[in-house]
């Protein structure tokens, strides 16, 4: 029998081999800001688990390298990822000298590359399995639960990022809820304003080019500048409009961040509403008119449901973009996970940067997967209904 190689598997095996044998698995630092010392897998783990992890990685890489059934590849990637996730915690407690609270153990490039290699394998398997939208959300939920369990069990408590968290547990959740409120709140505001505006632009052709051009230009203003520029007008409103200050509108802080995110969100919502409505088949509109539907009935009964998947795509773009942009709000005192990122950059404490960056990426990633699934469901539902 001829041995056949999987092309992607060659890439994965190469990354895994480099990461497992040449790159450092964990970094040991005597305190949180000094440069770290590299530790390989065998140095970072107890005598029993180190070889075990190496064996799992080699087996996983071999399964990836050869042409193997999808189920086996799925199992290999899940086992390898689970082993890596649990054992990095073991490395943390193994490397920390007893009773030392200043030492910081963090995952190093080898760990991240191994995670990347096996996530690549998992992503490939999941893509090839062609999962239904529900199944994809299910995979997301299972992954989130597994990570949640690891966090609750305290398995990772000896890692540097969680030591940073332990010092800031209260502000972490406060900033986190500010971040989510900013991203979601500005999205809701943009949908409330953008949908009617999009419908108006669709109906009134004269308005369309002008409105879209203005929104396009707003997108070109760099986010940090837009955040800054809103400080003055909002400060003026707070000082001169009675009741505004009581509503929490102030020059610095959450209000300018909210308005800036709202302005950035308008273009995708309005543009996708226009594109979606323009894409409604003429025949559907003619039929609706022939049935004697009024303009309003046609809008809500025919045009809107047909344009819905396209509008949802706009909402997905906005939500993912807002979750990322909300990190910038920290620069003008608006809070959010960006607080930790910028503090970390300022103190060159990378664990603190990670404490801000990892939840942001996780949120954006989860939002993208969930909304993609919803978009696909509405699109297929429509196809089934019209078939």
């Amino acid at each position, binding site marked *: 029998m001829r041995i056949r190689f999987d092309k992607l598997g060659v890439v994965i095996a190469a990354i895994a081999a480099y990461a497992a044998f040449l790159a450092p698995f964990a970094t040991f630092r005597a305190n949180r800001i000094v440069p770290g010392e590299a530790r390989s897998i065998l140095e970072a783990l107890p005598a029993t688990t180190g070889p075990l992890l190496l064996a799992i990685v080699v087996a996983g890489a071999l399964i990836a390298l050869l042409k193997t059934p999808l189920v086996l590849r799925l199992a290999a990637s899940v086992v390898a990822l689970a082993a890596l996730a649990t054992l990095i915690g073991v490395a943390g407690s193994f490397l920390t000298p007893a009773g030392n609270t200043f030492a910081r153990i963090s995952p190093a490039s080898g760990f991240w590359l191994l995670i990347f290699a096996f996530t*690549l394998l998992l992503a490939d398997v999941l893509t090839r399995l062609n999962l239904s939208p529900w199944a994809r959300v299910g995979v997301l939920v299972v992954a989130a639960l597994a990570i949640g369990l690891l966090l609750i069990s305290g398995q990772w408590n000896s890692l540097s990022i969680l030591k940073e968290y332990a010092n800031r547990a209260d502000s972490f959740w406060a900033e986190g809820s500010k971040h989510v409120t900013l991203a979601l709140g500005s999205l809701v505001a943009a949908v409330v304003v953008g949908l009617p505006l999009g419908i108006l632009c669709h109906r009134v052709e004269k308005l369309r080019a002008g409105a879209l051009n203005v929104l396009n230009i707003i997108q070109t203003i*760099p986010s940090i500048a837009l955040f800054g520029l809103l400080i003055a007008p909002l400060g003026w409103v707070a000082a001169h409009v009675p009741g505004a200050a009581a509503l929490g509108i102030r020059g610095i802080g959450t209000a300018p961040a909210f308005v800036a995110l709202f302005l950035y969100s308008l273009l995708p919502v309005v543009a996708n509403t226009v594109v979606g409505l323009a894409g409604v088949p003429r025949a559907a509109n003619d039929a609706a008119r022939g049935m004697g539907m009024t303009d309003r009935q046609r809008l809500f009964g025919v045009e809107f449901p047909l344009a819905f998947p396209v509008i949802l795509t706009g909402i997905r773009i906005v939500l993912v973009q807002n979750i990322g942009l909300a990190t910038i709000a920290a620069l003008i005192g608006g809070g959010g996970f960006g607080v930790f990122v910028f503090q970390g950059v300022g103190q060159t404490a990378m664990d603190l940067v990670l404490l801000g960056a990892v939840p942001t990426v996780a949120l954006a990633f989860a939002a993208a997967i969930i909304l993609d699934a919803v978009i696909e469901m509405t699109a297929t539902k429509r196809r089934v209904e019209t078939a």
Partner: protein
Amino acid sequence: MKAWLPSLLRLLLVVLLVAFVTNPGWFQPLLKPLTENGAPAIYNQGSLLTLTFLHLRTVLIATVAATIVAVALAILVTRPAGAEFLPLSRSLVNIGQTFPPVAVLALAVPAVGFGEKPTLIALFLYGLLPIFENALTGLTTLPANVMEAARGAGMTGWQRLLKVELPLSAPIILGGIRLSVVISLATATIGSTVAAKTLGEVIIAGLLSNNLAFVLQGGLIVAALAVLIYDGLSAIERYTARRMGQETA
């Protein structure tokens, strides 16, 4: 609207932009009301012209690198030999887009240090996605009869790629580059939070010293650059599309 009005506005914008970055002193009276306590109205910790130049250079390097890599990848996954990677590359691009630029920037710092390098990495990664996506669309939606004719004429794979596929998808690829440049122009300002020399320096100096004039001039220069470059690239795109005999919207 008269046909010449947009061109006139564009010309006016170019003149204003050049005048502002070369002789910012002329505009001092306009910006003075935005400052408080006699703070300087024009950025005084460096020349605006140099910063504009460095800003454009950063974006240019990142975009050229991103274009080369993205187009090469798109070509690879649309060949029979790389077809296996097509679905995976699509989902990777989707995942890549969920990484916020600030996070990429901050995470690149420990690997390469402060300054221009982390900014280049973030811009490069962020620029890849739109170009790759458009190149993929361009290369996978070529008219079947044209491809058939090229094959029938006895063209080899390389000839088809260089003489038929790439020229035909050039307008769409250019569209991706345009999108990527506009995103990069704005994102490069964030690079100044990790000490890159870009126009973001002016904005951040304004935020830190509560000087609105700085924030405004930094933001407006970047926005003007983005609008002009967007227009210029759109024109090139229309030109190539016409040469390829395609109708543009």
